[in-house]
């Protein structure tokens, strides 16, 4: 397998007080292939952002390992040795473009910041030219080079954030709900932009979203998270046509059907929020993993 990321038994706890701890991630194992678009879905609080932040070394997981191109990024020494490589080849786009852009920096400064930090030589002339090139790539007018984030619309800001993430030509792009704060027509534009950029540049994209329709359209494979657990991983088509885990079924049934009669008569399966205990991922079909409770043979 040509996997880019291998996640093995990842756990992450947040301690609120000395006694109270939140298990944001519990025993997550999966792999992400080179050059694919991997979708991550799940309800709010499922731990999607936490997983993304662990992948970016923003959080240090409580236990478990993440291998990126064979490098164990959770190991401090190994991370330090490969710091430059890791920091330039992985980039992240956040949900709220308003808070992910420094309000006191111009668009051109924001986009070229990764180059300046890493003292990388721009490939298209000066820093400014590089910024203009990236802006054109993401469909922004270079006339906005000297604007500040508060002068831009939400969609434009998100494009600037994407430009910044692409500046170092990353191998892995993590997008943590990049479209959640945009209105519907802009959402479609941004999703199409991601698709186009991924086709052109071939980076691996991890796309976190609430909107299942967008995930189905965009992603090659999808992982479903529930209460810190990964419950199902499968190729996108297969997951949407034949979901296996109870939670996935409930989640998918929440997608409205564009037919009023069918919509009204539909019976939505209730997922009674079972407490997930010890379980393991089983490959029920080639490439289709479902989480099963331990000692439970039925799916």
């Amino acid at each position: 397998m040509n996997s880019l990321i291998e996640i093995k038994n990842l756990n992450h706890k947040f301690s609120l007080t000395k006694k109270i701890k939140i298990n944001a991630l519990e025993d997550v194992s999966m792999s992400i292939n080179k050059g694919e678009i991997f979708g991550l879905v799940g309800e709010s609080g499922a731990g999607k952002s936490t997983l993304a932040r662990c992948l970016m070394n923003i959080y240090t997981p409580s236990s478990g390992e993440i291998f990126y191109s064979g490098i164990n990024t959770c190991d401090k020494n190994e991370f330090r040795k490969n710091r430059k490589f890791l920091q330039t080849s992985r980039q992240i786009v956040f949900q709220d473009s308003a808070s992910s852009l420094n309000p006191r920096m111009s668009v051109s400064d924001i986009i070229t910041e990764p180059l300046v930090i890493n003292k990388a030589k721009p490939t298209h002339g000066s820093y400014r030219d590089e910024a203009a090139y990236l802006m054109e790539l993401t469909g922004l007018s270079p006339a906005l080079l000297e604007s500040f984030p508060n002068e831009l619309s939400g969609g434009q800001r998100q494009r600037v954030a994407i430009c910044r993430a692409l500046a170092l030509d990353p191998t892995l792009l993590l997008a943590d709900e990049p479209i959640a704060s945009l209105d519907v027509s802009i959402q479609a534009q941004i999703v199409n932009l991601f698709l186009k950029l991924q086709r052109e540049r071939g980076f691996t994209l991890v796309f976190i979203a609430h909107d299942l329709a967008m995930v189905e359209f965009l992603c090659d494979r999808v992982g479903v998270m529930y209460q810190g657990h990964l419950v199902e991983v499968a190729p996108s088509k297969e997951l949407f046509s034949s979901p296996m885990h109870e939670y996935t079924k409930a989640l998918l049934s929440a997608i409205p059907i564009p037919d009023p009669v069918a919509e009204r008569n539909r019976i939505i399966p209730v997922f009674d929020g079972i407490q997930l205990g010890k379980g393991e991922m089983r490959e029920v079909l080639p490439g289709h993993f479902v989480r099963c409770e331990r000692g439970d043979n039925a799916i």
Partner: protein
Amino acid sequence: MDKQFELVGIVNAPDDGEKGRKTAVKKRPVVSAVILALIVLICLFCNLVMTKDPTYMDLYNCNVFPNGEFLFGTDMLGRDIFSMIWYGGRISLFIGFFSTLISTFLAIVIGSVSGLASPAVDTVIMRATDIFLSIPSLLIIILIQAILGTANALSISFVIGITSWTSIAKVVRTEVLRIRNSEYVIAARCMGSGLFHIILKHLIPNFISSIMFMVIMNIRSAIVTESTLSFMGMGLPVEIISWGSMLSLAERALMTSSWWMIVIPGLFLVATLLCITNIGNYIRKENNKSHSNL
């Protein structure tokens, strides 16, 4: 046709944007800025306006009342007060600015480090700051003065600078705690940015407006401290002319009822301080306004 549809229930919001802007313009401290700029400029180019050598002691003309030759009179050592005002103003203003530079630099470094560090380090730094704050600054000043020996403008600036950073540092720390979790700082960290880049590009531009008022007030209090110290005989010696050291002759001046020796430097001091206060207040109001607009 035109009255077929009518929108009801919508009340146009009163358009007070324009009015608000006008009052803001009106309140801009133009007079203060002009007076302050004049004082600073003349002090900087005092050689052009001085009619006498401010350090020359004309023993035939001690305690002279303001007249045509000595515009503001002379002091009891026979120095021309008009020339001394500009010449000494330069030192007073220099001390104000330079000590503020020192204290602001310290405040930004200490506040940023404290805000960015782990909670344990942060607590240690803040406790140390509190201890430092609880020692009367006069005590520290006298102690450092004693170590440094005879005072001059640089040493006074240094002493005032390192005793007046604490309150700015606390504001810087609070702001840094707020900004450091914002996603642009996290993104910069992911790109491998160092501490220096984050402080310079992300932190300072975003908190500078909230400490601007305190920084300007720091200039004011530094000038006051210098005057107070000199007045009490712990600051600049009489040979080094500043507004403070001119006032240090006040006691003896009162005995000879030469009021101009106190009133004239005092007037310049108060005028400068008032102007700085006005400008500082304006900046604070502007800052509050831009925050409430968000």
